[in-house]
């Protein structure tokens, strides 16, 4: 291996241009992603803000104090959301690994139909699906239970996770697993030491999708367990419908927070390089 030759001035200039363009595009991307949140942020700190004014006429921390106040029910709502989204994520991942493998690795008659059926719940309006499921759940006593909500959320979460994992397994060569088994590793050891490291980035992305889809659910949750389970998304929608825009803004930001955090984590697996680290270094 030889050291790369020092770049000549022309090359250095073009390199600088590339860096500049990359920086510019990153800034544009950041604006594109962050812009929608700015009004929410301003709202959340506003005291009084009416139409013709570009900025609020007065500022206040009141809405954030309200959010922090136990009476706001934000903490129990976050807890409910997590109690649903986390099991949904784990179950989606557990289903998506074998199901994605079957879809990605093997050809079998009716594969297209199976793929369609997995996608179907995402094509049909969620309301229809939830309504259909609600009738069945009432019969089996699952209405108004966490289990019921988890099962309903599982439908869209799992279908995304399965599709992501099918993509991962479409490019996966099982030869390394065969070598591992012949070397004396049982199925679990082979999965743990050989398969899992290979599919891990894809599995992280699939899990993050599954989590966010559950976190976002609103109509399905209300239909199945509107009376008992109060997730953060229900709280946010209620606040948005109410008159208190400052509170709605603050709640929305709390609601979006995990999505932003996960997006930063996921970008590492999506690009193979930690976007956060790259931003910090430049």
């Amino acid at each position, binding site marked *: 291996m030889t050291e790369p030759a020092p770049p000549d001035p022309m090359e250095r200039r073009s390199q600088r241009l590339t860096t500049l363009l990359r920086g510019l595009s990153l800034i544009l991307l950041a604006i594109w992603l962050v812009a929608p949140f700015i009004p929410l942020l301003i709202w959340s700190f506003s005291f009084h803000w009416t139409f013709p004014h570009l900025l609020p006429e007065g500022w206040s921390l009141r809405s954030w104090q309200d959010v922090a106040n136990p009476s706001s029910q934000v903490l129990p709502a976050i807890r409910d959301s997590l109690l649903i989204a986390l099991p949904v994520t784990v179950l989606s991942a557990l289903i998506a690994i074998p199901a994605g493998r079957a879809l990605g690795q093997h050809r079998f008659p009716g594969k297209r139909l199976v793929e369609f059926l997995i996608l179907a719940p995402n094509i049909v309006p969620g309301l229809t699906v939830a309504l259909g499921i609600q009738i069945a759940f009432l019969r089996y006593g699952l209405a108004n239970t966490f289990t019921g909500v988890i099962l309903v959320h599982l439908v869209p979460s799992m279908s995304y996770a399965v599709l992501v994992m099918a993509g991962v397994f479409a490019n996966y060569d099982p*030869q390394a697993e*065969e070598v591992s088994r012949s*070397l*004396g*590793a049982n199925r679990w050891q082979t999965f743990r030491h050989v398969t899992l490291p290979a599919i891990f980035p894809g599995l992280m992305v699939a899990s993050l999708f599954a989590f966010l889809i559950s976190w976002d659910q609103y109509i399905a949750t209300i239909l199945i367990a509107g009376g008992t389970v109060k997730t953060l998304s229900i709280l946010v929608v209620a606040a948005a419908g109410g008159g208190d825009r400052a509170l709605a803004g603050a709640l929305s930001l709390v609601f979006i927070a995990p999505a932003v955090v996960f997006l930063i984590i996921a970008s590492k697996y999506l690009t193979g390089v930690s976007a956060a680290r790259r931003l910090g270094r430049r």
Partner: protein
Amino acid sequence: MTAVTLSGLTKSYPGATRPAVDRLDLALTSGKIHALLGPSGCGKTSTLKLIAGLLRPTSGDIRFDGTSVLAVPAERRGAVLMFQNHLLFPYMSVGENVGYALKVRHESRAVIASRVDEMLELVKLPGLANRRPRELSGGQQQRVALARALIVRPRVLLLDEPLSNLDADLRDDMRALIRAVQAQLAVTTVFVTHDQQEAVVMADTIALMSGGVLLQTAAPDVFYDSPASVEVARFFGNTNLLPGTCADGRIATPLGTFRAPRSTVTTGPAVLTIRPESIKFSATGQPPGANELGGQVLSHIYAGTHARYRIAAGDFHFDVITDAEAARIYRDGDPVRLRFPPEKIWLLPPHSG
């Protein structure tokens, strides 16, 4: 030291029109290198996976030292695989790769570390335990894969075209290393290849397969001297075929009668075969004598160490290879005399179809 016996071994993949491995009978003696040779798609890899326990046979039996291993799962068979690509686990260091078989057997770190060093020594890569696989050259990765396969002294070592991704000279080195290590550990080895030359160089015995069926099993030289069929003769480069009828150690052909004591057929239709190197070659002077015939040079290639001729005789063509010691180089169109030494002629049954 394990003898492997395959009997009636058959594998049909679902939906396939014919079995990938078809009633294979094969006895692999302990401690030797056995080549599984045949064109791509003839069922070599399937056979290896059956022996390893990664595929379940449709029918037939696999015995290690006389005991059926069909009920033994892959991880406890002690038949270790090595493929040509995806050699090493990319997420592990070289040392972790080599020590993998010990780790999954829950050996202590100290034992693993010392055995890994030993194995890396054996494949002449000492001190590389902390490298990542991608930092190694193709040949080094091959050596590491060999060390990993041998660390637990497998009962059977299964090599699936392990050298086909290497450059020619690197391949020679690896052949020598595999032979040396194999001889030292005396592990029964099955070496899959589609390269006839490689099989001859590497193996103690060769099993030649075609379309899932075993054509012949023998020591390498037998494939040259006494192939079992025209198909085998062709695979080993013998393209000189002359049909006729044999009786009393002679064969009557359209080009005359030849004395041919070596034969698989005693009487009736047969095919005369003779290797290109075995045909003697001279200028025409006197009329052809016993086991001789006249012909004419169609084309020739001079290759320094030898020359290769295509000769027309009657309606037939023969390939002849002469070594560098040959009296002279003949030109296209030269009349020549060919002699088929009786002890070099091999009579085969006429090929079906």
